C-alpha cells in the first residue's frame, strides 16, 4: 500500500514538474495556461490521491479535495484566459488563426 501510494505521488510530481517547465518554455499567456491547467490538474490529483492511499484513513477526505481541484481548476483557468483576452493580451507570432472578432460580432447581435 505504502509503495503504491509513493509511486502514484511520484507520477503526480513528475506531471507537476512538466507543467512548470511548460509555463517556462511556451511563448504566450494562452499557451502557458494550457500547460498550467492540464498538468497541474492531473499532477495535484495524483499527488493527493497518492497520499490518501498511503494513509487509508484519509482516503475519503483526499477524494473530496481531489474532486474540488478537478472542479475548480478549469474554472480558474477560464477566468484567467477570459480576463487576459478582455485586457487585450496579444497572441504569439506563431498563431495561425484568431476568430475572436467574429465572436465579438456574434456577442453584439445577442
Amino acid at each position, binding site marked *: 500500500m505504502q509503495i503504491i501510494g509513493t509511486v502514484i505521488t511520484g507520477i503526480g510530481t513528475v506531471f507537476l514538474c512538466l507543467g512548470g517547465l511548460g509555463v517556462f518554455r*511556451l511563448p504566450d499567456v494562452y499557451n502557458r495556461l494550457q500547460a498550467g491547467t492540464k498538468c497541474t490538474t492531473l499532477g495535484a490529483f495524483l499527488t493527493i490521491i497518492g497520499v490518501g492511499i498511503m494513509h487509508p484513513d484519509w482516503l475519503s477526505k483526499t477524494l*473530496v479535495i481531489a474532486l474540488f481541484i478537478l472542479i475548480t481548476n478549469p474554472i480558474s483557468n477560464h477566468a484567467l484566459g477570459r480576463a487576459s483576452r478582455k485586457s487585450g493580451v496579444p497572441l504569439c507570432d506563431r498563431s495561425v488563426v484568431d476568430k475572436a472578432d467574429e465572436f465579438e460580432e456574434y456577442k453584439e447581435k445577442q
Partner: protein
Amino acid sequence: MPQTTPSTIERVKGFAWLLMATFVLWLALSSKLNRAELICGGLVCLIISLFGAHMYSKLGFPSLSMKMVLFFLIYIIVLFWEIIKANFDVAYRVVHPKMPIKPGIVVIKTHLKSDIAKMILASSITLTPGTFTLDVIGDKLLIHWINVKAEDIDGATSLISRKFEKYLRIIFT
C-alpha cells in the same frame, strides 16, 4: 437572461440535489458512521438545503434516473481517459526541443441548453488535449487550441466537443 420565478418542480429538484450533495460531502468529511454524526449532519444539510434551494433551482439540474446515472459514469471514464491523454500531449509538446505548437483561437457551437450543462462542457473542453475555453455566450464557445486542425466552426465543433456532447445531451434531457 429574463428573471422568472422557478416552478415547483425546479425548486424540488434544486432541493434534492443540494441535500444529496451536502450529505455526501458530510459523509466523506466525517468518515465515521455513528448515529449521532449522521443525525446531526443530516439536520444541518436539511436546513442548508431548505434555505439554499431557491438559489440552485435556476441552474437546470437534470432529473435523476438510471439512464442518467449510467451515462454519467461512462462520461466520467471518458473524461479521465481524455485528461490522461491531455497530459501526455502537453508533456510531449513541452519536452520536444522544437515545440510543435500551432496555436489559434476558434469558435465552436453547442446544442446544450441549461447553464450547468454548458459549464460542464466548458470545463471538460478545458481538461482535454490542447484546448481550453475562453468565453461562453449563448450557444457559442470561444476556444484556444494549441494545435489547430480545423478553422471553420463545424470542423472545430466535431473535433473538439462531439465526444462529450453526445453524452451530455442524454444526461441533460
